[in-house]
């Protein structure tokens, strides 16, 4: 719980033809984190084509499911095997055929939609042409010297097209615009007709199919338009029928395709990390928890009956940064883990701060927001929102409960200080004691972080930093000495001399360490040593004082309540209670929010930043369930 589980690096070698089943078994096993294979002798990537086929098939299946709708819940049978590469490629080909059929229906639908828009535009155009009283039959005569086109083109290109056509003796006459489409007549010498064909195609010109009826009797075009609309509707209905047919025809097979792709996913995902091989052999590499080794062997024996070779080793010192961290948390601690992970993931072997975080965060929140009533409201609200907040609701419930507990200690209920007797102390009546306790807590917290950092540095093999750096033993010695000196000066103890010696010893050690660590010229080393040593003292002092905010917020809570009571007491009965209720809501929302953030800030910046680099890698096991982000 306080540090990551010991892991083993495994290299599982098996027949390449069984790699997909091995990956599937490892995914079912549930605690195998794939990693890059480092065996130089295995130069090939046997799973690359498997992954490629899977990605293509998965993309096609996703598009089909988007069109056809979901095929229902997916149940993977325990004894189901992963498809071989040939099967996967076959499935991919089938999905391609289905998608192309589906796509052509879609494409047809899109074209029908465009044709309908075009007909709408044509109808409007006809109305204008009717008014023009132009003899279209003469205008559009194929044997005339003048070549005439009626059609549309995108409005932004009109000017350019007009200029370009003018170079060939053509005129452009715009007569209508519908949306972004401009309708125009283009006329020019028939001898130069060929010259403009390429230009018109390039400009996205769409010729209006003017029917023969229109050429002689513009009014007759209405009937033609209606006929065209009916034809498009029939065509669209046919396309819809084809789509429905596709759904009915392929629905069950699509479900099967989903199943097979889900079974193929583990090898495709493992291939991302790198499955290596040579000839008929393939090797999967990754990390498993040490305590799961026997279970893994059992799983593999069950499936492969000895047709595999398992090589394992402990992580080496130089690869610690790449080893994933797997920490098992008890159920009650899990809601707090995302708050720790939002800062970072602990490195393999590092101290995991989730447990002390949970306790300290709640303690700080309760101390700063101690009120039985407000705590109860937070608790009830978090419980009521459990479905929406999920596991995180437990953080709210716990914070509310601790707030109630401190409310009892402080004797505070909805800001009233006189309903219950304080079990411990009232911040308003004993502020100095509260401040002293807060600073004392801060000293304890900083000592704890320095000890944890020393442990982390020793684990990482940085003994000199653990012993002599400002965040190691030397820093701790200096800090304890400095605290002892301050306490002695304040008359709290008679330890002035030993404390001074301790502080001096600590700071000199730190200065010497900084001196030897700095790789620079003498002048620069002096500067670096002086500044970094000074910074050590200032940081520790400032970090300790930072904890005074705990006392400040507990006082602030009472002061806010007093302000509300003062306002409420100046009003009539209705106004009084309205102000009390509104004021309490403001305290819970505003101050509660601020205190939650301040407690988090204290944990992150006065705590985590001292010992927790947060640059570890999370243990992400191969799973059967969807993990698209990794793939």
């Amino acid at each position: 719980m306080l540090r990551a589980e010991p892991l083993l690096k495994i290299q599982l070698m098996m027949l390449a033809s069984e790699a997909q089943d091995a990956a599937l078994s490892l995914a079912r096993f549930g605690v195998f984190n794939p990693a890059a294979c480092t065996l130089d002798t295995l130069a090939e990537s046997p799973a690359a084509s498997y992954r490629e086929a899977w990605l293509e098939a998965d993309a096609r299946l996703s598009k089909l499911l988007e069109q056809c709708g979901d095929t229902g819940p997916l149940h993977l049978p325990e004894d189901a095997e992963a498809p071989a590469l040939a099967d996967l490629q076959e499935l991919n080909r089938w999905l391609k055929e289905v998608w192309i059929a589906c796509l052509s229906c879609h494409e047809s639908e899109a074209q029908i939609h465009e044709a309908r828009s075009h007909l709408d535009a044509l109808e409007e155009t006809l109305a204008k042409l009717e008014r023009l009283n132009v003899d279209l039959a003469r205008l559009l005569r194929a044997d005339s010297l003048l070549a005439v086109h009626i059609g549309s083109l995108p409005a932004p290109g009109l000017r350019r097209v007009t200029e370009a056509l003018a170079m060939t003796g053509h005129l452009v006459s715009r007569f209508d615009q519908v949306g972004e489409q401009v309708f125009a007549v283009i006329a020019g010498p028939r001898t130069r007709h060929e010259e403009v064909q390429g230009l018109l195609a390039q400009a996205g010109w769409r010729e209006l199919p003017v029917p023969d009826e229109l050429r002689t009797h513009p009014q007759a075009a209405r009937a033609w338009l209606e006929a065209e609309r009916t034809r498009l509707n029939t065509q669209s209905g046919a396309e819809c029928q084809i789509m429905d047919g596709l759904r009915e025809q392929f629905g069950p097979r699509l479900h099967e395709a989903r199943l097979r792709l889900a079974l193929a996913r583990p090898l495709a995902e493992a291939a991302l990390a790198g499955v290596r091989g040579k000839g008929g052999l393939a090797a999967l590499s990754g990390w498993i928890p040490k305590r799961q080794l026997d279970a893994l062997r059992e799983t593999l024996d069950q499936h492969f009956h000895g047709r595999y070779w398992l090589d394992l080793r402990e992580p080496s010192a130089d690869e610690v940064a790449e080893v994933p961290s797997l920490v098992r948390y008890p159920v009650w601690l899990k809601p707090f883990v995302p708050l720790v992970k939002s800062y970072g993931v602990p490195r393999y072997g590092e101290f995991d701060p989730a447990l002390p975080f949970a306790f300290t965060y709640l303690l700080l929140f309760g101390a700063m927001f101690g009120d039985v009533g407000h705590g109860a409201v937070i608790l009830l609200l978090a419980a009521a929102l459990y479905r929406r907040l999920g596991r995180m609701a437990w953080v709210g419930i716990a914070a509310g409960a601790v707030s109630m507990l401190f409310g009892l200690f402080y004797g505070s209920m909805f800001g009233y200080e006189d309903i219950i007797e304080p079990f411990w102390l009232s911040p308003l009546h004993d502020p100095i004691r509260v401040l002293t306790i807060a600073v004392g807590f801060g000293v304890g917290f900083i000592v704890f972080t320095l000890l944890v950092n020393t442990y982390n540095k020793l684990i990482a093999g940085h003994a000199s930093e653990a012993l002599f750096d400002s965040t190691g033993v030397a820093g701790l010695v200096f800090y304890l000495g400095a605290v002892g000196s301050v306490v002695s000066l304040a008359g709290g103890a008679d330890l002035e001399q030993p404390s001074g010696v301790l502080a001096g010893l600590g700071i000199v050690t730190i200065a010497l360490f900084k001196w030897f660590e700095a790789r620079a010229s003498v002048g620069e080393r002096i500067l670096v040593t002086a500044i970094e040593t000074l910074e050590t003292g200032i940081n520790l002092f400032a970090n300790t004082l930072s904890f005074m905010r705990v006392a400040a917020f507990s006082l602030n809570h009472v002061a806010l309540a007093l302000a509300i009571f003062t306002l409420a007491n100046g009003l009539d009965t209705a106004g009084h209670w309205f102000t009390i209720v509104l004021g309490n809501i403001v305290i819970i929302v505003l101050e509660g929010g601020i205190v939650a953030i301040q407690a988090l800030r204290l944990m992150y910046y006065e705590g985590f930043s001292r010992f927790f680099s947060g640059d570890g890698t999370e243990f992400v096991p191969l799973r059967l369930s969807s993990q698209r982000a990794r793939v």
Partner: protein
Amino acid sequence: MSAYLNTRVSLFSGRLWRDDDLDALVSVPDDAVADTLALRGLPQLAAGYDSLGGKQQDSRSLEQRIIAQILDETRVMLRPLSGSARSFLTFWTARFEISNVKTLLRSKMTDERPAAILARLIPMGAFGRLDNQDLAHAEDVGELLRRLEAGPYAGIVRHARRAFEQSHDPFSLDAALDRAYYEGLTVRAQPLEETVGAPFRGLMANLIDRINLVWLLRYRFNYKLPPAQVYYLLVGSRYSLSGTQLQQLAGQDSLEAVLAALPPAWQVRLHGATDIPGVFARMEYAAAEQAQRVLHSPAAAIARSFAYLILRERDLRAVRAVLRGRHLGLADTDIRQALHRAPTEVE
């Protein structure tokens, strides 16, 4: 903020390559290439050269590293910018993504596998606006174009789709995409030309005029397109070569006639050019000279940044030529011949 950007551009300008530096890179021993590249502010290229043993670096990876380097530097310059300056510089990087769009379209026409397509795309990092995975898995050009039309480059792609639907010619797709991109660039440049003035307008004029003249020559005499279509495919210009002049030039029957019909100042600039690469080299040289002047002038920070990026890209193309030459085992003299950057050397 402009003080920051001006300082940053001045610091960056120290990384530009002089002809002597390029000359030295041609003959430097293999094991010193990575250090030379790193010293000239090309850590991305140096890393590639180092990790792959120099000569193993293939042209695709080299190209990708060069663009990654340019994007890195552009990102730094974008930090203090906002409004039209930010929009312009961001759009300037979008041409790499338009190049990805072209790769995607061409690959779909030849039915390439998605994995192969993805490997060929330029990694855009934080500048990427396209979902390449999704696009690479489109079934055909039609599906790809519709997906692109639903994305951030809808304006550029819509027109290209219509052109392609009419002609089914890959050339019309490329030409429509290029034209729409540079039209978009000039639109974004306009507010800056008004506020920043001559230095910025000069850089844009050099860029768009060069593009128009080279495209005109290529479309007219390599692809044998009719004058009207050539004119239509050029970028709408408000710079030195006006629309009327471009129409006249497109109507000429030979490269020599086009060059003879250019304004006198242009004829001096292009003196000695006998082919399209020659014209391009001379115009690029003139653009680089102007960018140098803007970079070393007290012009607005955005103009200096743009000038730096123009020069940097030119440098990186030259570095790429040297590294490719070395990769192919060409003789030093041949690489130097290919490197000629000044007009007198082009002849």
